[in-house]
């Protein structure tokens, strides 16, 4: 498996959903039969293990690999339900300077022999942690939400990725937390507006959903959480990564676009005031 595909999910701004996207994209690819390893490159502020529900199973971290205490295959944590999904966990007590870009290249090189897909969860910011995360990847996925601060940071990150040798052919965009009702009412930027402005290929549109919070509460990726519609979006994105031609409109096809009616408005009014 020398030809594993290595993705980095990055954004510049924090809190736009990178970790959630890494967890759910990895789970979706693993459910389709591929061996997937997720790397938490957010040293010191880890939370990919929490989103995956693996926080109590982490014994060794990436720092043990870097210091030579353990080999990389020995420190991987296997997901409880998805047996071909693995996590290389980060350390809460370490800092970003304890891992160098060369360390990350070595780690990814070793993992490439065992996995079809490796997805690196980049930390927020554009400093050492960002460089560590992007140096070993072949393809970058830039995540933004429809607010201007996040778009501005995404634009900056695209510039830095280009400096690192990335081109428009290996940078894709995911727009997270779109509210189709607001877009329809002309009160929110659409994914297409952002795509045009950043001049990137659109890999997926993820609508705002409380399913994300519920699945994180359970520590289960959406593809194995019960009763949610959002896993279809991650399946679409993973299909696009696999080279399938899935129209981007399909990401929002299961979502209710119609503005709320009068009764819904009154109901929400009382709910908000109560």
């Amino acid at each position, binding site marked *: 498996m020398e030809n594993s595909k290595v993705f980095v999910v990055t954004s510049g701004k924090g809190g736009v959903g990178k970790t959630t996207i890494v967890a759910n994209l990895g789970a979706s690819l693993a459910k389709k039969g591929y061996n997937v390893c997720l790397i938490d490159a957010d040293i010191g502020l880890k939370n990919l293990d929490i989103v995956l529900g693996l926080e109590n199973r982490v014994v060794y971290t990436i720092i043990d690999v870097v210091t030579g205490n353990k080999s990389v295959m020995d420190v991987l944590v296997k997901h409880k339900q998805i047996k071909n999904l693995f996590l290389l966990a980060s350390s809460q007590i370490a800092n970003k300077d304890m891992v160098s870009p060369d360390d990350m290249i070595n780690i990814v090189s070793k993992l490439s022999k065992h996995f079809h897909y490796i997805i690196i969860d980049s930390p927020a910011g554009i400093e050492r942690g960002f460089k560590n995360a992007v140096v070993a990847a072949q393809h970058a996925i830039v995540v933004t939400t429809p607010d*201007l601060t996040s*778009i*501005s940071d995404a*634009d900056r990150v*695209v*510039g*830095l990725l*280009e*400096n690192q040798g990335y081109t*428009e052919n290996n940078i894709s965009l995911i727009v997270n937390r779109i509210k189709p009702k607001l*877009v329809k*009412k*002309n*009160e*929110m*930027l*659409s994914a297409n*507006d*952002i795509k045009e*402005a*950043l*001049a990137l290929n659109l890999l997926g549109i993820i609508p705002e959903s409380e399913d994300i919070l519920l699945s994180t509460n359970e520590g289960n990726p959406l593809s194995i959480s019960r009763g949610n519609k959002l896993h279809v979006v991650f399946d679409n994105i993973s299909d696009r990564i696999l080279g399938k031609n899935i129209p981007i409109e399909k990401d929002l096809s299961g979502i209710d676009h119609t503005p709320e009616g009068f009764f819904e408005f009154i109901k929400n*009014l009382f709910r908000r005031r109560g």
Partner: protein
Amino acid sequence: MWPFTRKSKKTRETAIKRMNAFLSNSQTRNDNKNKNNISQIKLTNVDEENLNYVVNYIKDYAVTHLSVKREDVKVHVSKEENSITIVANIIYK
């Protein structure tokens, strides 16, 4: 009157305008990718100190806003009588 106040303007239009304003640098960068970007300014009555300031300002601006290395910003200064021509050549790799 609350709760029936109406927004006077669709906020998406404002957001698009603002987004395009602050992304204009990156769009220029994308348009000029893989080719050199040359711009010129002409100044009159400039002393040596001001000249150095302008040259450093151009280099700093290119490094900060255009994501290029400092050594890839070539600033050429030529004097003709009492005027000075500065040509900045910014190389994108």
